[in-house]
């Protein structure tokens, strides 16, 4: 379902797709943070380890999807141009600027 929503949201940066991606990422993050409580719920289960792993991998996949989506939308600062404003001008050691 997430996949479908992300596909439908498109790659343009506007408020709704951004919100969707954000919500998705946030939900997954929350789920991951509440891993311990989830594990507690699973204490009674026999295949506890497997279930936990599946939960982790599922959430991880979802997060990767969100990141991919961000990348596709151009929100991740992975290009040189994203850091251009922080590039300092090179220092010139010769003095020849004429007044």
């Amino acid at each position: 379902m997430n996949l479908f929503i992300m596909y439908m949201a498109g790659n343009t940066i506007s408020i709704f797709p951004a919100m969707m991606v954000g919500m998705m990422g946030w939900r997954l993050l929350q789920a991951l943070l509440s891993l311990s409580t989830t594990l507690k719920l699973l204490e009674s289960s026999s295949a506890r380890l497997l279930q936990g792993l599946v939960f982790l991998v599922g959430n991880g996949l979802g997060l990767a999807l969100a990141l991919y989506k961000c990348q596709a939308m151009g929100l991740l600062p992975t290009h040189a141009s994203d850091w251009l404003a922080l590039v300092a001008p090179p220092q010139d050691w010769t003095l020849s600027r004429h007044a």
Partner: protein
Amino acid sequence: MAAGLWALLLLVPLGAAVYEDQVGKFDWRQQYVGKLKFASLEAAQGSKKLLAATQQNVVAALSSRNGEILWRHVDKGTPEGAIDAMLVHGQDAITVSNAGRILRSWETNIGGLNWETSLDTGSFQTASLVGLQDTVKYVAVLKKAAISLHYLSNGHLKWVEHLPESESTRYQLLYSRGTGVIHVLGIVPQSHLNVLTFSVEDGEITEQTKVAAPWLKSLNGACSVVGEAVLVCADVDTHSLYVCSLETEQEMKQIPLQSLDLEFADGFQPRVLATQPNLINASRTQFFLQLSPTHFSLLQYKHGLLSHLRDFQQAALVSFATTGEKTVAAVLTCRSELKPVNSDDLYAGNALEDSQKQESLTCSNQTYNINLYLVETGQRLLDTTITFNLEHNGAKPEQLYIQVFLKKDDSVGYRALVQTEDHMLMFLQQPGKVLWSREESLAEVVSLEMVDLPLTGAQAELEGEFGKKAAIQDGLLGMFLKRLSSQLILLQAWTAHLWKMFYDARKPRSQIKNEINIDNLARDEFNLQKMMVMVTASGKLFGIESSSGTILWKQYLRNVRPGASFKLMVQRTTAHFPHPPQCTLLVKDKETKMSFLYVFNPIFGKRSQVAPPVLKRQILQTLLLPIMDQDYAKVLLLIDDEYKVTAFPATKNVLRQLEEIAHSIFFYLVDAEQGRLSGFRLKKDLTTEEIWEVFISPEVQKIVAVKGKRSNEHVHSQGRVMGDRSVLYKSLNPNLLAVVTESTDTHHERTFVGIYLIDGVTGRIIHSSVQKKAKGPVHMVHSENWVVYQYWNTKARRNEFTVLELYEGTEQYNATAFSSLDRPLLPQVLQQSYIFPSAISAMEATITERGITSRHLLIGLPSGAILSLPKALLDPRRPEIPTEQTREENLIPYSPDVQIHAERFINYNQTVSQIRGIYTAPSGLESTCLVVAYGLDIYQTRVYPSKQFDVLKDDYDYVLISSVLFGLVFATMITKRLAQVKLLNRAWR
């Protein structure tokens, strides 16, 4: 279609014109006329104007009440517009301009053009009004080989006659006195005079005589016509005057000067000054004979008798004026004795002093008197003394014009127009009141710098508090007390400021007067107000406050001769309190090529105590280094013609620093005549060694301009973001020079303009290109990684812009350090050309504090408008076919024509005549750039190339926003209270 759409899109955010209520809020314009060439003052008490024709090719009328310009006509700034003569008759002013090609008549009340006719070619000699019977009807124009007569009413030609023997004879004088004939006087030097008499009616030569005058070299100055057509000439060799009646005699009569007890000064060419009050009557029989630069004599030649009326020793200027029947002579004298200038008074420059001593005779106390004398008798008229003082500027008077009128009691009253050496006009009234004065030297600004104003007294106090000297003197307690006191002063200043704001807020806006004078000068919050230091061609310096245009100080450099070149440098800014800011002016004489330095404080205009080095050789180049001496003055290096370097200041500290960094100091020299560019490197003993040379053959092309980058320029972004989000790095070589050449062959098929980009340290030619079929004048701007230049395309007959941009590519060679010596890769050069619909007079790029704001080009047009053209329009990356990526990059598709949109004029209707330069300076606000355009007029404004992104708009609705805010807060409080009540009620239930 797509291109049009893009252009439209681009236009929308760029409509940067001012709103109606912003007119004059941030900008001002001052209009000038220039140095007087001819002036005419009406001889009536109630007259309201004076007419002037000036060196700047302006015909204007000034109000005699306040000196304002009533009307002004500006001709071309080139010699084509030069005014050769001005004659005034009644309501008409006749001017001859363009080397005697154009004759114009102006209506003097409103400045309208009555008529204009073009004259035949031929070198112009003189012009004169010609009267017949009792009216003035014609204008006679004397050329080298012809004389023409025009009707005064419509300019139509009455007749034109060739002058006989015009190859050998130089015709120089015209004379008529309403008798129906015109006398034309020509001279064959050291042989004889040729006197022609023309009939006014049909132009026939009625008489032609030759008068022997083997001693005479030129008529101009040495000869004049007095009385009833009597020629008077002065001869310096025989110490005598020669007289000859043009109508009756054929020989010159010699009158030795000894008979009058007079003598010519050695080596001075004597002059005869006569007056003809009414063109239909004879001249006055009285005339001035100038015997030496300061000695005049009033003489009379009547009935064949020469008599001496009065002697004027030590007079600087004389002038005649007539009202009604009375003709008076005005004499400007020194109040005290004249004496040669004390050489201590002159500013530095030994070499210049000696040559000037001879001519600079000036009053010791700079106080002058003007007196009137009746010409018939030479008697002084009582109560006609005007006394005035020129102490504050030290210039001497140069021209004197008198306006006389009869008072009710039949006595003579007068006003005087005095022009001084420094091109200041003063209008004086008895007994010495200056009615108004105009600083006409500002019509010829040659160099300009903007200097930050000092901090306010309170701020400076706080800054100085922790100065290093103070810390040593006072102990801990002393420092603490000092801090308390300075805080108190700050508090006091703040309350005073608040009080003033409160007080002003109640008054209507128009009444608030923010008088700016030299005492309350202080920097404003955003450093928008600066001191403009202007250097004018006359050698006068001005300090002008930039927000209002008030002249706060002026200083005349007496030993600057016309044609000198100037270079103004700021050695210390105001940032180093308590050290005063310091500017240095390098003045280079045109003929001797010798230079001297003048060091002064740019805020107060006072000459600095620092003694500049005496320059014994001519200076070829200057270099202002970023290193400072212990007093925070930047070090100035002066390179002389022996390639030796003089440092200023030259303290031990500086010399030590120089020794340390000498190996990294490079400079270049340009010899345009020999087509040689050479680079030098400084050695430790302040000598130099040549390290490179580029030769551009002067037989093929001549160097017309060499431009580096501005030293105060910051470039924020090191590259450009491409459509695919990679970076195209700019090639930012701070040592890059752009050299423009023009071909010596000016044939329109073969003429070309060349451009060379040369590294100023290594001499490496980074790029060179030739623009075929192109012609100058070339205007160029060199900034960041681009060069824009403009030229005339002779093939397509239009003006074109070419832009060059330099890029390193997608990788930077060395991101941390730059060195011209280590650049293995040549930059990529992109180039594009555009058609511009107008010629241009000046071009400059905007500059801002940190270089974040986008750049605009400010282009001064001959029409007087200043166009602000976004640099994005002159971008060689503009694609011919737009793609997805270029659209992503916001590149405008290429279209060859750059249009002039009136809404891009930053000076709306405040045109600037004869623009010669545009100066830009950064302000404290990143969005704002200060602009000064100068030419005949001076215009100052601010521009916001990326709009005012860091300031709230002028029309920001403070009231609405704050009332909404307060309303919301209030509503919250009420609803909270209501909710509490409701809760309480529910609990009770």
